[in-house]
């Protein structure tokens, strides 16, 4: 718990201000955007997962952190540091995402709240896991966000790839792409499983290593 408190202190007030401004923007869009826009899908399946990934890339720096050598020298396992830092940021973003979901649900009622959370969690978990991996690989700032940003934008631009049979099971924005049958449920489960496998790999590599 003390580690989480420390991470929250390191995060500071900036993310809270930025996420609050995003909540305001979402509220304005929810009120004024027309019926042509499905804000529940584009907002929580596409935009918020990237905000979560970007936050972990920018605030959850590991190798790009100026104090990396210091922390690595003092700790027994890099994994606990990575886990606490990433989980704290992910939980903060998710909290604000849920606030946005409640607002959008009350204003627009496009889909049930639990479904919105499920639609958000899987691409967010996948993109943030990739960002954590990049944070463990790259020593330069912003590179993790760049890599995940390009993957995110590419996924949005490659909806036509869904014509291939297996892609529909791993495409991160399946609901936004218009899949409403049971495939989207399998897709979300596959994404969460893949992310869990990557986390297991990170644990296996870094649980006994301090750098």
């Amino acid at each position: 718990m003390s580690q989480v408190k420390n991470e929250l202190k390191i995060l500071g007030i900036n993310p809270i201000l930025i996420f609050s401004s995003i909540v305001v923007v979402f509220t304005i869009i929810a009120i004024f955007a027309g019926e042509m826009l499905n804000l529940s899908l584009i907002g929580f399946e596409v935009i918020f997962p990237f905000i979560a990934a970007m936050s972990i890339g920018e605030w959850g720096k590991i190798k790009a952190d100026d104090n990396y050598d210091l922390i690595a020298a003092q700790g027994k396992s890099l994994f606990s540091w990575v886990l606490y830092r990433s989980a704290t940021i992910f939980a903060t973003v998710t909290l604000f995402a849920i606030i946005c979901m409640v607002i959008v649900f009350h204003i627009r009622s496009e889909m049930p709240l639990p479904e919105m959370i499920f639609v958000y969690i899987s691409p967010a978990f996948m993109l943030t896991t990739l960002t954590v991996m990049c944070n463990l690989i790259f020593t330069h700032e912003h590179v993790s966000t760049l890599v995940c940003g390009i993957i995110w934008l590419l996924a949005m631009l490659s909806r036509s790839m869904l014509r291939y049979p297996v892609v529909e099971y791993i495409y991160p924005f399946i609901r936004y792409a218009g899949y409403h049958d049971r495939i989207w449920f399998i897709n979300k489960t596959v994404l969460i499983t893949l992310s869990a496998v990557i986390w297991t790999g990170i644990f296996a590599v870094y649980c006994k290593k301090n750098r």
Partner: protein
Amino acid sequence: MRKLLSVIYYEYIMQLKRIATLGVLACTVVLTLLDSFPSAKNLARLEFLLQPSYFIYRTLSFGALIFAFGLMFLLSNRMTIDRKTGMDQLIMASPVTKSQYILGKLIGGFIYTFTVFSIFLTINILIFYICVPADVSFSECLIPLIKALITNILPISIFISFTSVALPAIVDVRLFYALASVLFILNAVSVDSSDKMPFYLVTSGDLKKLIWLHPKFPYINTDGILPNLIFLLGCGLISTALLLLRRKIWRNEQ
């Protein structure tokens, strides 16, 4: 003037020599060709792919958007990194003025963006010219390329370079990323139409229609071209003005 040119030159060279530039360039060229390489399958899928102007038009909507997104990240730390490494103190100790420093950074970033964008389009059109299974003359490839460079890449480069260099020096870089991601996602979800496109699109705006027009709609909807151009140039110039007006950035005004 010599000092300004020096800042521009070093900024340009520093950026161009970054390995990340090559990485983003190579990655986007591959992605663009995966989407619209003139292979039998792609030719069957995309009706007008044999036309070089359509190839460039499509490249602007797909590859150029990803490339612009990547360049935005690469340019976003140009001012903040000087502050972080203490380079700004060294520059402030030299006889360089605030406007020379800022304009040098911005113009250097602009020339860099325009150069790599030109390389990106040239590589793509050269590969298209070599591999297209039809009789396409070199001038048929060259003319849309030059048109794209002047009418699209020039304003896009001004937008990307000026906003990406200037805004992160004024606001938190994460806020800049969040706003930019919303803009790029709007660009990504926009569907091509013969009607007027939203003015705020970066690479898929109405400016793109100056390169290729759908044969069924062979007229240019000029209503959307000027707002798109004003948006791209205006955002770049407003960002520059905001940065020049920021007092905290220079020694005498702290």
